[in-house]
């Protein structure tokens, strides 16, 4: 048995992928995962969906059952915060002063929620949504006909709105930008989601910035800069995340909108790797450096990190993809749309609930937003990675099977 030690900091999706893959790929030394939450790795996507709506319980959230970790000799220390990395001595320092030695270190520290700093933001009844504890607290304030105000019209905000509406709450979403999902989708998609949420009874208010939260012992209302006041029993804030780069930066590792890693998940220190939401990495399909906030990246990059540690290097070159569930809408996104010049829609986006929106540049598909259109999603992955030349007219013609457009 090897005496080598691998420590993984962070215990979420990426960690749950790195650890078993290390064993599979032949790592015989110890594997220790350090997490700051008192839970074994769990799926985060259901937090704003089935876990919030009550369809799933905590037991349904775990990525793997404990027996797997036991069989693979993967150890955990939970409720632990790493305060520093001592690279010279190859040790991590915990916030209680304890030192743990490593031969290989993997940072899967993810991202934390961006917080708003306005009067009243610390009142009970105001929550972010990132972990199990958040949702457990949120659920104390849910209830039929109670009022929920959601600050932020991104995926978290909209998924949360759908889940709370399912619970019979009166829901309002306040978005600072002119449209929801502005950062990530075309105007047609923003209009679509606004329409469906409205059909389901959720009020979406855009171009609206919040100024303060009113309340005495609990949050009671959100006050906007334009003077509008929205009464609330529950306020949820979803305004983005910030990568946790401080540990790496303080240790002198290269950091730039994330912990910088190469295509083998290595940081600027050969014995320290990183994977998941916390990294900035080069994607060869798009030819640029990026930071992704997705389960797919956590898993694929986690596999790359484990392979690298075991001397079986395979470069990272996965196509980003993402999904979001709201009401009866299953959105599957393949690729990244940044830099698109045209959008081609296939299906009825104006009145229906099933369509695919293709983002094109120079007759090639950069990305697709597919709503209840799984075949378009699956086939597009190939069209995107192959950089296939596409006839936009045929693409937009639903009578021509998408398969026929594959050269």
């Amino acid at each position, binding site marked *: 048995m090897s005496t080598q030690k691998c420590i993984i900091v962070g215990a979420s999706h990426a960690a749950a992928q790195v650890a078993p893959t290390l064993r599979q790929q032949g790592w015989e030394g110890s594997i220790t995962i350090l997490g700051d939450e008192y839970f074994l790795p769990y799926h985060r996507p259901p937090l704003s969906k089935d876990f919030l709506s009550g369809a799933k319980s905590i037991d349904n959230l775990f990525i793997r059952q404990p027996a797997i970790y036991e069989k693979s000799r993967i150890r955990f220390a939970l409720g632990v915060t790493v305060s520093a990395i001592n690279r010279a001595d190859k040790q991590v320092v915990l916030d209680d002063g304890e030192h743990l030695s490593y031969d290989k270190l993997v940072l899967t520290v993810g991202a934390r929620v961006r917080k708003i700093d306005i009067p009243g933001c610390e009142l009970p009844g105001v929550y972010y949504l990132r972990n199990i504890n958040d949702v457990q607290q949120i659920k104390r304030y849910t209830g039929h006909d109670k009022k929920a105000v959601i600050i932020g019209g991104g995926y978290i905000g909209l998924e949360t709105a759908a889940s709370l509406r399912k619970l019979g709450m009166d829901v309002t979403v306040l978005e600072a930008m002119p449209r929801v999902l502005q950062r990530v989708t075309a105007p047609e998609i923003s209009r679509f989601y606004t329409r469906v949420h409205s059909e389901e009874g959720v009020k979406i208010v855009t171009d609206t910035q919040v100024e303060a939260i009113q309340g005495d012992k609990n949050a009671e209302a959100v006050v906007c800069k334009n003077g509008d006041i929205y009464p609330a029993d529950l306020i949820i804030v979803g305004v983005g995340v910030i990568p946790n780069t401080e540990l790496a930066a303080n240790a002198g590792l290269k950091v730039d909108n994330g912990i910088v890693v190469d295509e083998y998940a290595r940081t600027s220190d050969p014995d320290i790797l990183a994977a998941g939401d916390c990294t900035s990495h080069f994607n060869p399909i798009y030819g640029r450096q990026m930071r992704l906030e997705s389960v797919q990246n956590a898993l694929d990059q986690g596999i790359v990190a484990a392979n690298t540690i075991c001397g079986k290097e395979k470069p990272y070159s996965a196509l980003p993809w993402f*999904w979001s569930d709201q009401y009866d809408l299953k959105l599957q996104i393949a690729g990244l749309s940044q830099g698109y010049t045209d959008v081609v829609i296939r299906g009825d986006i104006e009145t229906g609930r099933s369509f695919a929106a293709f983002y094109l540049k120079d007759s090639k598909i950069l990305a697709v937003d597919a709503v209840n259109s799984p075949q378009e999603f699956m086939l597009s992955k190939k069209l995107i990675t192959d950089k296939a030349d596409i006839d936009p007219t045929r693409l937009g013609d639903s009578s021509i099977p998408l398969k026929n457009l594959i050269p």
Partner: protein
Amino acid sequence: MPTVTFISHDGNAQEVHIEPGTSVMQAAVDNMIDGILGDCGGSCSCATCHCYVDEAWIDKLNPPSDMEKDLLTCVQEPAENSRLSCQISVTDELDGLVIKLPESQF
């Protein structure tokens, strides 16, 4: 406790005991069965949990949803007995279920 047998592409069989109500995908992930991934955690979104259900059992399962059927048309080597294993919930009635694994999910 119902048992499910996973047969890998090269013929290796592995029998596992599964808590009723668990999906075949989760059972595979929990038992480190190589060949089933389940990247989306069972939300019928990624089609990386593709499996072939043994002919003796295929009709005993709940039929696939439209979403599952559409995703299945795009997996590697789809067949008549293809299913997404995250959509198969193991019950006592499925004790003895045999699942064959594809060569690859990609």
